[in-house]
């Protein structure tokens, strides 16, 4: 009896084959249509979405890197420009100072020269005036002396004598 039952173990039953076939085919069709197709599509869509998101993140990172590189470049350029500007400004300042200095020197020289000339002129005028004054004074003095010298006859004679003495009629 045991052998009989165990033989039935490996003897496929027609009923179960029949029902398994029907159930399995139906399940395959129904699950294929209503479950596997939407699920697999959804998973695939999501995977593609994730892939796309990763790719866009990567490209965003690259963009950012590029942007940063650009920024650095711009910054470097700006720095260079600033340096150039500063240098230019310094040069300009130096030039202006130098120009001002030379101009001031020139002005000073010119003023000095004018002053010197004026001083000479003034001096000359003063000398002339002094000369005139001295001449006048001398004349006045000579007049006064002459007057005193010629105030009496003796004195006049004495003078003539004196003068005569000097004149050597040789």
């Amino acid at each position, binding site marked *: 009896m045991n052998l009989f039952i165990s033989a039935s173990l490996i003897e*496929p*039953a027609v009923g179960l084959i029949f029902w398994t076939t029907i159930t399995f085919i139906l*399940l395959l069709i129904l*699950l294929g249509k209503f479950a*596997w197709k939407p699920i697999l599509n959804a*998973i695939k869509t999501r995977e593609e979405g994730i892939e796309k998101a990763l790719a866009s993140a990567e490209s965003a990172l690259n963009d950012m890197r590029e942007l940063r590189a650009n920024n650095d470049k711009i910054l470097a350029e700006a720095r260079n420009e600033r340096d150039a500007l500063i240098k230019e400004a310094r040069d300009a300042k130096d030039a202006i100072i130098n120009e001002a200095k030379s101009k001031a020197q020139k002005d000073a020289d010119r003023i000095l020269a004018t002053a010197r000339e004026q001083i000479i002129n003034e001096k000359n005028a003063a000398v002339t005036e002094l000369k005139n004054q001295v001449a006048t004074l001398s004349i006045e003095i000579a007049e006064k002396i002459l007057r005193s010298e010629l105030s009496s006859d003796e004195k006049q004679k004495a003078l003539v004598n004196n003068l005569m003495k000097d004149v050597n009629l040789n």
Partner: protein
Amino acid sequence: MTSEISTYKRFSSICFVIFALFISLSFDLNASEPIEPETHGTVSDSSHAAGAHAAKAHDPNAPVDITSIALEHVADSHSWHLWGEGHDAVALPLPIILYSSTKGLQVFSSGRFEHGHASYNGYSLVEEKVISEDPTESIFDISITKNVTQMLFSAILLFFLFTSIAKSYKTQGVTSAPKGKQSFFEPLITFVRDDIAKGNIGHGSDKYVPYLLTVFFMILVNNVFGMIPIGANLTGNIAFTLVLSVATLIITNINGNKNYWSHIFLPHAPKAIWPILIPIEIVGILTKPFALMIRLFANMTAGHIIVISLVGLIFVFKSIYIAPVSVAFALFIDVLECLVAFLQAYVFTMLTALFIGSAVADHNEDGGHNDDDEKLVVKH
């Protein structure tokens, strides 16, 4: 590495085939004898035998026939036995559907047989087989047995489970992270799609993914149900595994390309050994799915038999002190069976994918690679 594994698998499957053939032949020889009196015997004979069996079960001193209990446990049944023995047994009667050559289609409850004690409408139930009293009548028993019930239940469960998961993709959108059921099953689905289908079939595997997924979850769910104490041993039933492996056989050979068939009928070997090689290759077409059938059946049935045998030790030794040992070992085997439930679902699906992959591969092992290399060279 892979060739070693496949060689081992081929070897083990051949061993299975030889073993199964040997067993089936020996049982057929032995079984042909006792069938005779039962088919021709009267109803009173069989009911008497069943009565004696019931009486034996009730006698506390009689030796317990563990073998028949174990074999009944793993076999299909026309009623869903829940608990109890003999007359105290609580069982759910299931519908009997018969197609008779003389009476046509007949449907009635298995409760009419009263656990094999009564005959109904000219039929009686002997050793879970419906037998007609009219020797000229041939019947096809397409009853909703315990296994069919569980299969229908699991199919409905799978359908509602996966359509609800499909719906949650629709309602939550595809960009959100999976939740609940979705997060448990999505890794399994992607595992079947990526590792099993794409890994073994390669390009164009998408076409076979629905089949592989259905097979995988059908086997997995029924393996797990089989481990629940009152569950049916559907995946350990050879009829079920037969249908699945025939499906694999059909899909493999329908999709077989030129290379696949030329490998079978025009092997790369001297023509002198073609008469040997070609029959071997043709047999090989059948042995691959045959091995699938036997592997799943034998693995699941063996697990169940080991568990019930371990529990049966208590009754063989008639000592309660064996119980802790039995329970410990049975627990160990049960945990192992948890692994086997997943493993066998994986192995069946993986090998199906492997067979399909070998049938649809673009090139065979000898010339194909060179062709591809040349193509690559041309492209570059």
